[in-house]
């Protein structure tokens, strides 16, 4: 023991296994939030609940190719994945900046990138869980029948779809304090979900709301989700993806700048 400690001091050891460490960090981030019921219950229950309400109990009726079960499956999945991304980044980064967790991480050899990567993985895992809950409900109660390719396409939208909202959440987390962050995130999350046509189809909303919808990242992801389940024609996919990529980049750069300037 004696010589070992001294050796360490002299040689400065190489970094330990990055992957194992990242794996543990993801596990901790995910389990930590899953056990925090004020986070996990709304995140996992609200989207299926809305779906149950608006697609199953008070359906708006089918017309032509329009199938509310299918349409709302896509839009509530997108709405559902925004939650863990915005709250998981926005609120937790704000709190961890304040309570000293980030400070402690800068003292020990915790790899800085793991902090963000673990939160990203956490958001993707929650998105996958939201998707699974929605699928279960859509098949059993919503009577949705789709080809396997449509199910897979929606999953492929849902999981990476967290990215722009993680970036927005991160930016909020670098600006807001721990107490105000939940309120700010709610002010972004709920109105954006509504204005982007994720609660009700845009066609049912006033003209003005329809016109400004392309301003919201949630609208673009919602469109891609609807394309995946065949509820809107697959036109303009690239523009939607481009808008989301730009959103991600913009807010990530803004957040990174804030993080660098942060006094400790």
């Amino acid at each position, binding site marked *: 023991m004696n010589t070992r400690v001294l050796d*360490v001091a002299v040689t400065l050891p190489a970094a330990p296994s990055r992957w194992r460490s990242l794996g543990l960090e993801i596990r901790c981030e995910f389990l930590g939030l899953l056990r925090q019921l004020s986070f996990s219950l709304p995140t996992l229950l609200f989207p299926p609940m809305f779906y149950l309400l608006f697609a199953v109990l008070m359906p708006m009726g089918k017309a032509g190719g329009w199938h509310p079960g299918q349409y709302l499956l896509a839009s509530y999945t997108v709405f559902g994945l925004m939650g863990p991304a915005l709250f998981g980044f926005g609120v937790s980064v704000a709190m961890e900046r304040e309570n000293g967790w980030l400070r402690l991480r800068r003292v020990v050899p915790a790899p800085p990138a793991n902090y963000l990567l673990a939160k990203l993985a956490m958001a993707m895992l929650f998105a996958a869980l939201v998707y699974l809950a929605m699928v279960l409900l859509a098949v059993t109660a919503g009577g949705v029948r789709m080809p396997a390719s449509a199910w897979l396409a929606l999953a492929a939208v849902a999981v990476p779809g967290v990215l722009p909202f993680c970036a927005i959440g991160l930016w909020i987390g670098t600006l807001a304090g721990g107490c105000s962050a939940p309120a700010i995130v709610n002010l972004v999350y709920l109105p954006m979900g509504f204005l982007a046509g994720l609660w009700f189809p845009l066609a049912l909303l006033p003209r003005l709301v329809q016109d400004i919808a392309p301003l919201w990242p949630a609208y673009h992801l919602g469109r891609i989700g609807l394309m995946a389940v065949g509820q809107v024609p697959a036109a303009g996919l690239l523009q939607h993806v481009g808008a989301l990529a730009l959103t991600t980049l913009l807010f990530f750069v803004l957040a990174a700048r804030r993080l660098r300037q942060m006094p400790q």
Partner: protein
Amino acid sequence: MAVEPIVRLRGVRKCYGDIGALAGLDLELRRGEVLALLGANGAGKTTAVSVMLGLVAPDAGEATMFGRPAGSLPARQCAGAMLQTAALPVTLRVGELLRLFASWYSAPMPVHEVAALAGLDDLLRRPYGSLSGGQQRRVQFALALVGRPSVLFLDEPTVGLDVQARQALWTVIRAQVAAGCAVLLTTHYLEEAEALADRVVVIAHGRVIEEGTVDELRARSGHRRIRCRTAFAPEVLAAWPGVLAARARAGCVELDCDQAEVVLRRLLALDPDVSELEVRRGGLADRFMELAEEAA
């Protein structure tokens, strides 16, 4: 080869706006020693530690750990820290936290080993948030140790611990030091500094005003404590020249003096019945009080 200090601050200055926190601080932490950093609130202790850890960049001067810039990843690989303001994720279990921290170091202790050292064997499956303040402190101590650090930063390590837990923690710290680990200790408990420290540095207004072993500091204290049984009331004695404070203690009086000889001569001359006389040199606390008065 000259022995390179583990941590070195050279001429470190740091201002926050108009407030100067550090004014040219020089400090060395050497291999295998416990250095207690003492100072009144606002003396610059926290800033000094933050600079050593690389959390705060100095305005001028140099901060190194193992000859590397403070806060660089290789330097952090060899350091463990117990900070005062360090909230840990409350929903994670103690064992999960220990495994996560261990994964950041290249030669960590096995989780059960460090848990045994810090007295956490029965708490590994408990969520951190469900623990008492003292238990949380022990978890933070275990997290500081898990990487087998060569230098430990302990910021008020035993706040909130009962006497037994404090003694147990001291024992573990001493064992780490015996194994070659250096410790930088900041504490408000002077008895803790007396019990652990090889060397003491007192800072005021952002610079070192006193440095030495605990015994050297004690020896520098001009204060003496006189204890005896006498007919004089403490209130009377308190007014004598050379007496700083006087109080009744278990049938005796206890006098803190800066001129013990003068006081003794007068006391023995005026009261022939003085008994159970005892004169002691002041402790670290007395020296610390003197320095605080001089610095103010």
